[in-house]
């Protein structure tokens, strides 16, 4: 087995009498993006803080690149890049000075550091503002710098804690694109969010976390199937649908079909795979289809199913 970039298990943190994180565990391989999806107060930041060695844990183990992570293990920390949830840049320093300072803490220096800082400034689109103090930056620019600092030293594991909160759609897209890019380059990424769309777009695997516990974990598809969700398919039709509905009910993969006035509603497992078959059955029954609408279940509905609550209230 190849070495996992991050492996954690049994993570536990108790604040006074509040169990903030309870038996959280997962792993991330190189080139993989793992999402922690959960609502406010679910325990995402607390988990991340233990994984990055900021916070003492009350239980569990963490290894990064095979090195055990504790609050004092500098060798494990060297492999990790952290993008904190709250913007963590010095307002009275320029963008470049911020990058340079943190780069030095990772043992970078001289020409290498300067070149890498320029590279990162390019990636986060701040090259033309490099020598301005960050206190004059917009929220989105600060967010981008916040991310830039985390990936300056090319960490094996990049941890991003809700990096797109309060960012306009354009900046958000730029951020998501750079994460995708880094992942393709082989970085392992841990991404927390309560935006379902971000998790769906970026993450190879997702852990759904609530009340400090991981309720379910897997690829989007796995999660959806785990809770027995089906794609909802709606066919716009002309003509009598009764025969078609009966024929559809007999089809493999179709869980339920309902005929309405000028339409047929179906619940299907893997609609994409069965769509041709469905359409031919319907046409054979003498019904003309004028439109198809497929609604795939998403993580939002999975979350709703698991917790009985919406992801965002």
């Amino acid at each position, binding site marked *: 087995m190849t070495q996992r970039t991050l492996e954690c298990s049994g993570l536990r943190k108790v604040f006074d009498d509040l169990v903030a994180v309870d038996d959280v565990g997962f792993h991330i391989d190189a080139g993989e993006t793992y999402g922690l999806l959960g609502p406010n107060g679910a325990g995402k930041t607390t988990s991340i*803080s233990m994984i*990055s*060695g*900021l*916070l*003492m844990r009350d239980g569990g183990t963490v290894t990064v690149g095979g090195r055990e992570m504790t*609050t*004092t293990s*500098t*060798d494990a*920390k*060297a492999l*990790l890049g*952290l993008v*904190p949830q*709250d*913007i*963590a*840049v*010095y*307002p*009275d*320093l320029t963008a470049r*000075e911020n990058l340079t*300072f*943190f780069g*030095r*803490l*990772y*043992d970078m220096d001289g020409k290498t550091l300067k070149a890498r800082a320029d590279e990162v400034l390019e990636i986060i689109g701040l090259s033309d503002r490099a020598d301005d103090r960050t206190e004059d930056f917009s929220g989105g620019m600060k967010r981008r710098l916040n991310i830039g*600092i985390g990936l300056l030293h090319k960490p094996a594991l990049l941890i991003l804690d809700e990096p797109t909160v309060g960012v306009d759609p354009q900046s958000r897209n730029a951020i998501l694109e750079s994460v995708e890019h880094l992942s393709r380059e082989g970085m392992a990424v841990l991404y927390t969010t309560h935006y379902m769309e971000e998790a769906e777009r970026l993450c190879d695997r997702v852990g759904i976390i609530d009340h400090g516990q991981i309720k379910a974990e897997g690829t989007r598809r796995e999660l959806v199937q785990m809770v027995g969700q089906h794609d909802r398919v709606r066919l716009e039709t002309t003509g009598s649908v009764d025969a078609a509905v009966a024929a559809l009910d007999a089809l493999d993969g179709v869980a339920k079909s309902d005929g309405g006035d000028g339409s047929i509603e179906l619940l299907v497992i893997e609609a994409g795979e069965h769509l041709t078959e469905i359409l031919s059955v319907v046409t054979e029954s003498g019904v003309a289809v004028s439109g198809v609408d497929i609604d795939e279940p998403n993580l939002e509905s999975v979350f709703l199913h698991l917790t009985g609550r919406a992801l965002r209230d």
Partner: protein
Amino acid sequence: MMRTTWIIARKDLRQRIRDRSALIVGILAPLGLAAIFSFVFNPISEFEFSADYVVVDEDGGPAARLFVDQVLGGLAASDDITVEELDTVDAARALVDVELDPFSDMETADAAFVIPAGFSSAVASPDEARLEVLASRGSSTAAGVAVAIAEQFAGEIQTARVAAATAEVLGAEGDRADTGFRALAIPSLASVVDAEATSKILDGTTFYAAGLAIFFLFFTVQFGVNGLLEERHAGTLPRLLAAPIPQAAIIGGKAITAFVLGVVSMVVLVAASTLMFGAEWGNPIGVFLLILAGIFSAIGIMGIVGAFAKTAEQAGLFSSIIAVVLGFLGGTFFPIGQAGGILSQLRFITPHAWFMQGLGDLAGGNVADVLPAVVALVVFGLVCGAASFYGVRKGLSR
């Protein structure tokens, strides 16, 4: 570890230079106040030598009268020197050896000459004759002049005695061939005895410059010490904690920042108050030792506040209260040492009092005299510094 500590300190110093508040608190405010106080209490005057001496003649013999009437009488003819003859040594000592208040009009003397009984007959014989000088430590120049006067007189007597003894040898050959040796072997005539003065006192200008400097020092070091709370506020603390550096380097970086700010502010204040208002801080090495130790103690004490405060605002408030209370108790606003009673003893629970005491000791003595104060300040720094290091460390990754 040292490299990282320095990287962090350099970053912090750059921030402090940019926001300028350290400059205001560390240099401009104390200097401005010192200027005001110094102007109010010491109207600027040109330096001129003046001395008030007393003399006690317990002998009354010819040699003693010679000294009192001819030597001292000659000096008293000048406008700048007064000489008063007193009856008892105790009366003289009372004038020399007092806890001086630089601002009172109380009569004091810079030095007392004491001519013990038997002085004249001792001069006339080969015995050792003693002429004592009680020097006030507070007025070193005038006291130094008094010692020089006594030594000069002793030298003249010695010359006279050697001449007399030589004449005797030449006049009565063989009889007393060893007289010359005896005369030459006469011990030094006048021994100068320092008064065991407790009066260690700074002049008004120096007092206010020093008091304000140490008072504001406790505010200045906060700009370094509270750096950790600022990191927390700026959200950058998680970044530092996630970086592959020892936590001690983070704390050390803040302490070094505080230290550098403290040294710069104190050195500038010493130099500026000396050049601009004529403050007399004393031996530079002694002053520097006191400054270093004082900064150390300030960092320790303010570090405790920083360790247990939750926010920078809270720390600022607590620190201000503590700095003012300690400054007041430590006698940086007025010479509380002269108040007597419990307050004058209680002040030694503050580093401020030790710092001021150290400067006083330095003014009246030499570099080694600052050591008790330096040791006391370092102990403050060590005890409080250890407590705050422990507290900060514990708070970092709760």
